[in-house]
């Protein structure tokens, strides 16, 4: 197990939050520990995941993509087929049920691409919880479709125009909101980041991705894959995919960060490949920062990867060399989108396309009897304007 000291992943993680939040974090920690052992909670979660979210998601053998890459055999874990179109619902639903059990009436969340916001708004509609979502003003513009979806679902979306007006600033505002309303409000953090116990809670709700993948690949191939590849924003789809494989040393784990316009240009979101360790949003982790410790803006064509930090468990897996962190640029991600559309008839989210792009390189270094599983974290409907713009179209 990767967190031997509670709340720590090696030297990473922790609870770097204002004192006002400490009691709430402790309550959450205790409530979560209890529910984890409560079979009625687990049954309830399983019920909704199956009947509402549509799990399990297929592990699909991508035959034409395999031919196109010309190397390892490629499987896609189809998180894009979940209700609301991404893996984010696994966590949002789990935490909304948790909040309900804790007797909380209101939910606050942050969102970048809007996928976590939509997933949270959806879970709140389902479970009759009041919901408020903070979203960077830049992202509100980039992801207008998802803003509209959230509003239809009865959620109040608040645009944040402070700082860089993106995901990190939305997290700041959500934290502030939580500090002020901690009595009756639960914060559904959207990725495997933030103060303990969030990285653990989010990982546990996302590990279903890896657990299913493991069972499915054993059934299809009678063996484990040689590599799994997932994109890294805050790191939730990736840790969900990686975690059940961490002890299986023969499975190589690849996390793909967003290199934006190229790491050398400084305009990227690659916290591990292009940052230093530091503290933001409650955790010690890899972080984009300047020499004064000021947090720098992240840049990625995909709003969901546009975060200057990375979940602390990834920092740890990097530290001990268990997972390998690589990157893909905006341009490579766009190529990944086109490729998957053309070969398999699947429009991936721009986030997921980073994983496709890296897998295309990795596959070529492997043989046809080797296996790669790519986590297809979400579908790309939300990104058509951005993709069109990148391709010189005028849909936007």
């Amino acid at each position, binding site marked *: 197990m990767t967190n031997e000291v509670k709340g720590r992943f090696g030297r990473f993680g922790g609870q770097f*939050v204002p*004192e006002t939040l400490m009691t709430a974090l402790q309550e959450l920690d205790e409530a979560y520990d209890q529910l984890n052992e409560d079979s009625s909670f687990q049954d309830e979660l399983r019920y909704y995941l199956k009947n509402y979210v549509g799990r399990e998601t297929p592990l699909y053998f991508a035959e034409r993509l395999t031919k196109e890459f010309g190397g390892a055999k490629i499987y896609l874990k189809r998180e894009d087929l979940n209700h609301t179109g991404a893996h984010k619902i696994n966590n949002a639903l789990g935490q909304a049920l948790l909040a309900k059990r804790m007797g909380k009436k209101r939910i606050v969340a942050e969102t970048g691409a809007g996928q976590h916001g939509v997933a949270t708004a959806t879970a709140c509609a389902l479970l009759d919880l009041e919901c408020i979502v903070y979203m960077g003003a830049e992202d509100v513009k980039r992801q207008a479709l998802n803003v509209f979806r959230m509003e239809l679902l009865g959620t109040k979306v608040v645009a944040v125009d402070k700082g860089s007006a993106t995901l990190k600033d939305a997290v700041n505002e959500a934290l502030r909101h939580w500090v*002020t309303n901690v009595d009756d409000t639960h914060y559904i953090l959207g990725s495997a980041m933030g103060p303990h116990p969030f990285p653990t809670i989010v990982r546990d709700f996302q590990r279903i991705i890896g657990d299913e993948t493991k069972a499915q690949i054993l059934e299809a191939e009678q063996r484990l894959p040689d590599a799994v590849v997932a994109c890294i924003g805050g790191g939730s789809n990736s840790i969900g995919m990686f975690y059940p494989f961490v002890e299986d040393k023969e499975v190589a784990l690849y996390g793909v960060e967003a290199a934006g316009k190229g790491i050398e240009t400084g305009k990227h979101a690659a916290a591990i490949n292009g940052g230093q360790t530091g503290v933001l949003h*409650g955790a010690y982790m890899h972080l984009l920062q300047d020499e004064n410790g000021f947090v720098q803006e992240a840049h990625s064509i995909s709003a969901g990867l546009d975060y200057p930090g990375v979940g602390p468990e990834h920092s740890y897996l990097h530290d001990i060399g268990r997972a390998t962190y690589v990157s893909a640029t905006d341009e490579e991600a766009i190529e990944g989108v086109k490729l998957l559309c053309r070969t398999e008839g699947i429009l991936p989210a721009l986030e997921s396309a980073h994983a496709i792009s890296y897998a295309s390189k990795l596959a070529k270094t492997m043989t046809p009897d080797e296996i790669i599983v790519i986590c297809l974290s979400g579908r790309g409907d939300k990104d058509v304007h951005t993709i069109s713009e990148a391709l010189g179209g005028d849909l936007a």
Partner: protein
Amino acid sequence: MSLLKDAILSVTSQGDKAFIPYIMAGDGGLEKLKPTILKLQQLGVTAIEVGIPFTDPVADGPTIERAGERALANGTTLRKVVETLNSFADEITVPLVAMTYLNPILAYGVESFSAEAKAAGIRGVIVPDMPLEEREIIHPTLSDAGIDLVQLVSLTSTPERMERLTKASEGFIYAVTVNGITGARSSFANELEEHFKKIQSYTDTPVLAGFGISTPDQVKNFGAFCSGVIVGSKIVDSLVNEDWTTIEELVAAAKTAVV
């Protein structure tokens, strides 16, 4: 021995209340830091809390956040603030308390920060995003340099935490009087009085009230429960407007807090 605690006790032993203004370093330019500090100490403040701007100030209310944004736009950094303070350290007669988020200290280097801050007159440090459980990351080094690490106690701290926090806090105990940073004060005066009594029962370190105190009446009301007050947003606003009358009235209220 704590210079900060001594400074507060020397005020309260006279029957007055401690008054600590919060200023945002670099708001209006770093060149304003020296005249502001010299003028505040001339007015008879007990200590001065020097805020360091940060890109992600999750514990700040809107007034201080905006002041921080202005300071950042001026190029203010923790290092530059320490350098500036150092340039007139021999004229500083009150203890300075730096309020900074953790990451700038880590980027500075805990050792160099502690040594250089000490030389610049910084006697205490408040790190709003570092609870007691995480303080080992900087506490031993600050301790060696003789800089106090002040802990905050919030309205949501459980009695068990309250006891640990008050016993660990150095210089003074910073009692937060509102839930959250922008929220209205949620407890009534008599509940707050109980709250302060409880905090003070664990320790002989002075307890100061902060967050959301902005009028001479509030200075007096809080002064009745504890050893003194910290005033932030109102001071920051008054400095922007160069409204020294308001600041003088606030300082004066602490001097006559006890009837």
